[in-house]
């Protein structure tokens, strides 16, 4: 059930590809039990609000159905989007700029109109509903606080629009301010606040009228790293406390991994993969996701044998690699092997690993908790190994000859882009 996400992706595929895709899905399911590390994380996420999500049913809180968007009539910015978001979920749309994630968010907010398809909120189409009727809170990257109003007036704005009385507005504004720990700042103007404080006001304002849904468009993009990490936790806690549904847009993967129940990775107007953070990291479904989320070593090769869930891939001039067959078509087709740097073992005991290659150290970078080593292996000289700074760390010098090895299940054969 958790892999309903793949159905979303499959819908974009041609009909004749469907069967093969199902097979792949089966293979992922099977691996599940084998993967000790990824399994726990996925299980944790699976207990979150995202559980029970059914693609193709009407039970979703927000539903994008066959949505397309073009601005110029030639190129689609969003290509045939299908996405369900559950009530109370924290869903992040992650992707490089121009991938269509912000356009998708703006269509949900009502500031952009889908060229095709429809968006449903609580099973009702909101295509014809203007933004102010949608009851969706929104936090903008630029905060969009009204400079001519005080913080209190900013917060009271959505309440006044809803014709609430003064007696009701005041306590709600006060509570909202306290929630973001800005109790004493009500009389100030936005310009008198720091960036982090302004961001918290914007957050409070988007929540003060108890919207069903809150959209956040790169809300932390303008903050420095430390403040950003602090705010990530705050937003996460607010989400947990209030149980509100949040759709969050960012291009920062660590932000997405920190906060989300599920992450939709966008590229080229398509959701490349929709999954909980751990699964996304542990089990990327294609080369783009593998490359975009976390650090990743890529080895280009050709499939020479398929063996159920595994396959043998020939790296030109280096030999064969045993890998999990995740997204490979058939024997003889090119593939990209994806391998996380921390899963590579240095000088493994011979015979313990199916994939062992000799390598040469090119560069060693000391990073405190770990040592990053760039080595030359299988004809690739940008192959990176992360060695934890723990007992038994071997000191390496550039030019040293070593061997590297990895398990079959840590090496994923993906599409060759």
């Amino acid at each position: 059930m958790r892999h309903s996400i793949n159905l979303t992706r499959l819908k974009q595929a041609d009909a004749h590809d469907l069967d093969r895709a199902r097979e792949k899905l089966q293979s992922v399911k099977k691996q599940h039990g084998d993967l000790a590390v990824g399994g726990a994380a996925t299980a944790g996420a699976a207990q979150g609000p995202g559980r029970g999500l059914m693609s193709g049913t009407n039970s979703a809180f927000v539903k994008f159905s066959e949505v397309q968007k073009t601005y110029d009539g030639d190129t689609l910015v969003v290509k045939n989007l299908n996405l369900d978001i559950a009530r109370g979920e924290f869903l992040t749309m992650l992707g490089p700029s121009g991938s269509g994630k912000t356009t998708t968010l703006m269509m949900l907010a009502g500031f952009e109109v889908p060229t095709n398809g429809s968006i449903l909120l609580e099973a009702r189409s909101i295509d014809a509903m203007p933004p102010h009727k949608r009851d969706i809170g929104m936090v903008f990257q630029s905060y969009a606080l009204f400079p001519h109003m005080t913080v209190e007036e900013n917060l009271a704005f959505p309440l006044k629009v809803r014709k609430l009385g003064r007696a009701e507005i005041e306590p709600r504004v006060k509570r909202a301010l306290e929630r973001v720990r800005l109790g004493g700042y009500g009389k100030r103007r936005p310009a008198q606040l720091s960036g982090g404080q302004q961001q918290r006001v914007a957050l409070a304002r988007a929540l003060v009228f108890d919207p069903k849904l809150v959209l956040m468009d790169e809300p932390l993009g303008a903050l420095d790293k430390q403040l950003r990490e602090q705010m990530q936790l705050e937003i996460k806690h607010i989400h947990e406390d209030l149980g509100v549904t949040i759709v969050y847009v960012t291009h920062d993967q660590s932000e997405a991994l920190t906060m989300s129940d599920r992450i939709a990775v966008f590229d080229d107007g398509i959701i490349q993969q929709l999954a909980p953070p751990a699964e996304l990291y542990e089990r990327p479904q294609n080369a783009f996701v593998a490359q975009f989320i976390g650090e990743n070593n890529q080895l280009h090769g050709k499939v020479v044998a398929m063996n159920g869930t595994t396959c043998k891939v020939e790296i030109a001039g280096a030999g064969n690699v045993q890998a999990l067959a995740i997204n490979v078509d058939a024997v003889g087709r090119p593939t990209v092997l994806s391998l996380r740097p921390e899963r590579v073992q240095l000088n493994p005991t011979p015979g313990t690993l199916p994939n062992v290659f000799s390598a040469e150290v090119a560069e060693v970078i000391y990073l405190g908790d770990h040592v990053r080593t760039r080595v030359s292996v299988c004809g690739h000289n940008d192959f990176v190994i992360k060695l934890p700074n723990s007992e038994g760390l071997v000191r390496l010098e550039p030019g040293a000859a070593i061997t590297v090895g990895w398990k079959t299940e840590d090496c994923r054969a993906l599409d060759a882009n």
Partner: protein
Amino acid sequence: MVTMAVQIARGPDGMPLRTKLARVERRRKLRAFTLVLPLLLFILIGFVLPIGRMMFNAVHDDTLLTLMPRTTAALSAWDGADLPDESAYAALAEDLKQAWAQRATGAIAKRINYELPGLGSQVTSSARKASTLSAGPYKPALIEINPLWGRQDVWSLLKRGSSAYTAYYLLRSVDYQYGPNSEIVASPPENAIFWDMFLRTLGISIGVTAATLLLGFPVAYLLATLPAKYSNLLMIMVVLPFWTSLLVRTVAWVVLLQQHGVLNEMLLGLHIISQPAQLIFNRIGTVIAMTHIQLPFTLLPIYSVMKTISRTHVRAARSLGAGPFYAFWKVYFPQTLPGIAAGSLLTFILCLGYYITPAMVGGPNDQMVGSFIAHYTNEELNWGMASALGAILLTATLVLYYVFNKLVGVDRIKMG
């Protein structure tokens, strides 16, 4: 602690840091001052001095003091109750003779004519006759020559002339003048035109400002929100009039608005009107032409402020539940106020000084203070009146600016 601080506050050469800082700062300030010096001098010579001189001219007039020195001296002891005695008349006779010989009677006559209209030519003619008087008593002789010398108001005027400073021009500019005994009285109705004219100037300026605001605001909004390829074209259309001389634009309005002008012919052709409408040489023409000329001055500051207002503000307001109009009115519009204030102030102050346009497309009842200043400067050479009107206009502008500042706050204004 104290010793520490002292140690820290000294540089390696033992000189206090404070002194060193002051020295460095002084050099920097001197350089900055040298850079602004040419402009400072230019403003001083080209702006402050002439305006100061104008303000001075509004109250300074030593015509009678210099041209009739004996008379004005003799009158310093006069109590003003009755006609002065023989000695004053003798002084007058001598002054008139001197003036006649030096061909200065014209200036005296002109000065007296300002305050007592119609007496100028009599002063000249009696000076000619007085130049033939050789012996006293002068009092009966001068009154015999012209009864004007037996008039209380003439002598009061001469006595006022013993001071080089006069409030006459300022009084006249607000429809007051001196009475026969130097008391301040309201000008007679046939002379009382200036108060009305100041109000008219104010009224036209407010009207034109309001019109430019109504027309300019939507265009500025369009300019600020349209994509660049359209807004650039529109911007050129807005700025285009700037490249045309004011005179040409005003004449163009004459062609458009006159009896058989483009506009009237069009309205007649469309059978909207049956008689040509009087659109020119009246208030309508004045306001139309001035509005056209002032439009960019109001529009551009508003535009430049609108350009800085983020679109996301309105979006945020919409997402918070505000309808399109409410979001515009409560979130967008208040942020344009600094631009509106700047544009309006600019246009209003510029309007106060208009005179060419009202002269060309307005009627006699549409002439503004500026026309009179120009008239007194160029045609009547009455520097006193021109300066007094100018000084009052300047003062009124400054007062209005002050009030505006109190109400709106100039620090909030953005000129772009």
